């Protein structure tokens, strides 16, 4: 049931792509969804996450975060392997092995102390590595920013994950609740910066897309991702910024009616 709830809006969004802006064709749909997500966040999620940070002792929170990070590590093994990256894959494997056993099911991150550094791979990056473009940027209800390509990661986790071995509904609800609250609590420090922005929607979108671009190239992108619509860029600006966007077909600015 939960799965269908998530997949359906994604398909819906994918279906009605009407290009308006060179990298955010779904902006007219995304913006209202962002407003709704923001309202839900203001009313429920952020207060809960704040309470979580305030009342749950730090070691326990660290344990919870480690637990979910351990599952991330598990998923980053196939993501690295499918890119032919043997060392990152084996490091993630070592991390899962150590942390799931000595680290009591992932609650303690012994691997980082060894040190086996955390790797940064996911299936969206795998597809990007092989040249698949991002597809439209999506603001998913109750979830947040992603792109059509990067949605492969959360979707794959719905298809299979350790949660499948928790059968009763109460257990599943607890798992997802803790997961969501932990994830939200991790990004609480960013709220201040986001709230300061003239256009938080654009700020989150541009940050998300640049960060993904950076990760797909393992921190070494060939050129910075051009942000802003073509008309915002200076024609005489540096070639690396002007060139990629010049080839984009008819970029119309979202703000012009």
């Amino acid at each position, binding site marked *: 049931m939960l799965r269908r709830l998530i997949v359906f809006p994604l398909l819906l969004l994918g279906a009605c792509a009407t290009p308006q802006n060179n990298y955010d064709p779904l902006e007219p749909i995304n913006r209202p969804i962002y407003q709704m997500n923001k309202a839900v966040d203001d009313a429920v999620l952020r207060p809960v996450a704040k309470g979580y940070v305030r009342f749950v002792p730090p070691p326990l929170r*660290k344990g919870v975060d480690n637990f979910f990070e351990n599952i991330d590590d598990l998923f980053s093994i196939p993501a690295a392997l499918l890119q032919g990256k043997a060392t990152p894959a084996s490091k993630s494997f070592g991390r899962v092995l150590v942390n799931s056993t000595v680290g009591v099911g992932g609650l303690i*991150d012994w691997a*980082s102390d060894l040190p086996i550094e*955390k790797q940064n791979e996911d299936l969206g990056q795998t597809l990007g590595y092989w040249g698949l473009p991002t597809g439209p940027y999506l603001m998913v209800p109750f979830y947040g920013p992603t792109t059509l390509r990067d949605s492969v990661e959360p979707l794959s986790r719905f298809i299979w994950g350790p949660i499948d071995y928790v059968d009763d509904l109460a257990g599943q609800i607890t798992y997802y609740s803790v997961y969501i609250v932990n994830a939200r609590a991790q990004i609480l*420090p960013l709220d*201040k*910066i986001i709230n*300061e*922005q*003239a*256009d938080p929607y*654009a*700020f989150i979108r*541009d*940050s998300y897309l*640049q*960060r993904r*671009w*950076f*990760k797909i190239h393992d*921190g*070494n*992108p060939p050129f*910075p*991702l*051009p*942000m*802003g*619509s073509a*008309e*915002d*860029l*200076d*024609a005489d*600006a*540096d*070639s*690396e*910024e002007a060139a990629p966007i010049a080839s984009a077909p008819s970029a119309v*600015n979202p*703000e*012009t009616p």
Partner: protein
Amino acid sequence: MYPLFSKLLLIITLSFTAAVSVANDSPEQIVRSTSKDVLDIIKKNEKDNSKMRDLVDQRLSPLADYNRMTSLAVGRYWKSATPAQQDALSKEFRTMMIRTYLSALTLYKNAQINVRGTRAGNDASEQTVRTEVSLPGQKPIPLDFSFEKIGSEWKVFDISVEGISFINNHRNQFGAVIRKDGIDGLIKSLSEKNNTSRQNK
């Protein structure tokens, strides 16, 4: 007469030494020494936010090309701005940038900044210094500084956190404000934001 003279002398000596030290350093050396100094300033002035901000600003100002940063963030509208407007924009942009990064840096005051290497830019006059900010028990955060050589000096024109560029991230928002309220509207909205957060501190 005498105090004025000594002040002048001090200013001349200071600007001279600053220029010399900057001219001889590679971007990587600049990042190493500056990041150490900035973290020191933050640690020593934790209780006095405005003093901390001023000291950091002073330490960074000879190294950063705020005009260039602002012009890149404002994009094509930069040229239509009058010199006075450009100055005002740069000034507000500078304040905003210091404010943004300081609020992030105070969370990371015990962090270690490790230089991971330098990447060549498009031509010989551009270089990016790649660093990582790490706290014990946390994932390191990539922090990159883009330098441009102006004359014999290297100056920072962009900073990115996890690949999120400060100038790129403001281009859309600035463009939208300028189209709606003009360049003066942007100056006004930036300075209002800078002022409110100053009062909050």
